[in-house]
């Protein structure tokens, strides 16, 4: 990407087209003002602080400050047994606890090298995809709020509520599940669960269409997001972006496809990437669209899983769980596709202890957010809000 020297230009407002920087406005410089956005700002999605240097409404530089929600997850992990890390992983990305647990579980299982019953895998995928939908609903809904549309947010939360109810029914908790354990599941799903999930899929399909009509297709929404915060593919990769962010930049990269885990290779689903017709590739609208499309794909995955689900006869969800989890000495880097991107766990075991020697969570939001400084240069404050919203950060995962 072309670096832009703003020193001699005074105030500039720029936009990016593929990999060149285009200057929209210049020589309108006023006195620069430091604007502290957050940590109690309504649209920083939690406790992020952005220290912006502004020139009028144009942001010349934005420096993110993190750590307001830091609780040293990694130190906590070093002090508890392997299974007891799972509830902590819920609290990383608290909007997608199942996915975080899933990533941790497959990482430790890779280190332990154990075989998982097939039904467990199917249930894992169902709950993870349900949680992905719930998470994307929050992302889309709050994005609406960031841009001033309040109603889609509540429609999203109405449907998310049903998903949380389903997951509560399965796992016993609404957000912090501790359901996917290393080597299995806490419980099998209730008897009618799959039927109800199927009904949910039927119920939810028209709702996504309505949401699309209300928000995604709205001209004001499109105008607010189209061509804003463009991130070219190569820069996105260099920044380590993953998940819908990377796909929004047009890179067809989904860990469920490209580094398959669990039963994803058996399932038929698309990896949606923007084609540049409805949106500029890499802009906020692309990222939003990818999330909206992914919800449909997740619904497809759930339907397939329900159809292919092995019977519950003689099934014990804890049958493969080792009595005492003490992996052989070694290191592993395992990862899963979270709603926000690649959640990786680096785990080092000394082979003696039942506690991990080192457990590092590679948080997708943390990495995605690191591009903030670059993305926000020369944008207007409303666009900055749109960009933060499209990155869809969860501070629980950023600060860990």
């Amino acid at each position, binding site marked *: 990407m072309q670096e832009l020297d703003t020193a001699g230009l005074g105030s500039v407002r720029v936009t990016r087209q593929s990999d060149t920087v285009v200057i929209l406005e210049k020589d309108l410089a006023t006195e620069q003002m430091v604007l502290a956005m957050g940590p109690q700002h309504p649209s920083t999605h939690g406790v992020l602080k952005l220290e912006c240097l502004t020139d009028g409404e144009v942001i010349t530089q934005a420096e993110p400050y*993190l*750590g307001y929600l*830091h609780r*040293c997850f*990694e*130190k906590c992990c*070093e002090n508890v047994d392997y299974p007891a890390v799972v509830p902590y992983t819920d609290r990383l990305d608290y909007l997608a606890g199942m996915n975080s647990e899933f990533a941790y579980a497959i990482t430790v299982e*890779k*280190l332990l090298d154990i075989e998982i019953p097939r039904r467990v895998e199917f249930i894992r995928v169902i709950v993870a995809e349900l949680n992905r939908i719930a998470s994307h609903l929050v992302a889309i809904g709050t994005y609406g709020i960031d841009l001033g549309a309040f109603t889609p947010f509540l429609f999203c939360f109405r449907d998310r509520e049903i998903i949380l109810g389903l997951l509560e029914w399965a796992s016993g908790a609404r957000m912090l599940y501790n359901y996917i354990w290393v080597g299995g599941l806490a419980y099998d799903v209730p008897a009618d669960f799959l039927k109800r999930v199927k009904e949910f899929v039927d119920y939810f399909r028209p709702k996504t269409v309505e949401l699309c009509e209300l928000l995604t297709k709205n001209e004001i929404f499109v105008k607010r997001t189209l061509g804003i915060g463009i991130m070219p593919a*190569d*820069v996105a*990769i*260099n*920044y*380590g972006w993953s998940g819908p962010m990377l796909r929004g930049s047009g*890179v*067809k*990269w989904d860990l469920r496809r*490209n580094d398959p885990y669990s039963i994803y290779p058996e399932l038929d689903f698309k990896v949606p990437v923007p084609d540049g017709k409805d949106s500029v590739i890499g802009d906020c609208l692309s990222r939003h669209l990818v999330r909206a499309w992914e919800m449909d794909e997740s619904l497809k995955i759930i339907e397939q899983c329900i159809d292919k689900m092995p019977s519950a006869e003689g099934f014990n969800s804890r049958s493969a769980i080792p009595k005492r989890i003490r992996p052989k000495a*070694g*290191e*592993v*880097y395992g*990862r899963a596709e979270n709603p926000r991107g*690649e959640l*990786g766990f*680096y785990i*080092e075991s000394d082979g003696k202890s039942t506690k991990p020697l*080192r457990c*590092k969570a*590679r948080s997708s939001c*943390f*990495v995605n957010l*690191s*591009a903030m400084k*670059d993305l926000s240069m020369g944008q207007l404050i409303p666009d900055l809000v749109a960009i933060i919203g499209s990155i869809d950060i969860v501070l629980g995962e950023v*600060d*860990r």
Partner: protein
Amino acid sequence: MEEGKVISQSLQESAAAYSIIHEKFGSAISALDANETMPFFEVIDTSQWTEIALFMRDHPKLKFNYMACLTGVDYPAEEKLGIICNFESLALFNHKLAVKVKCARDGGSIPSVACVWHTANWHEREAYDMFGMLFTGHPELKRILCPDDWVGYPLRKDYKVQDQYHGIKVPY
């Protein structure tokens, strides 16, 4: 079964990628630890780390364009701190490699690769924040998750939490 095959295939590719790096840098890097879970090699001559990184990123047969993760690690037994970087070639090749770089525990420094992969910028800041190794050439090496005036490096194995922070009792 099939899954196992896929892994070993990618391990072969990783070994091939390693041999390209080894050809160029020879004794500056250690032998490949070809385990199934995370094949890695260690950079012995840490001063060459940035060059190795650039080579890994730009070599047409390597193209490690994606840094998945950078983990700081404390090795109290060896009196060392280290980082572990997981690389892969996103959407181009199938190989994956991890690289370990170590430095002295007290006042040790590692060359920064933030100029090679933007991902490393914040991750190196985090490693510095948590372990206290320096990254030479980093654009702005300061704490990221802990407050600027925090004492100590929390993820070191011998870390003792401070009692008071601006008059607030720290240990819970």
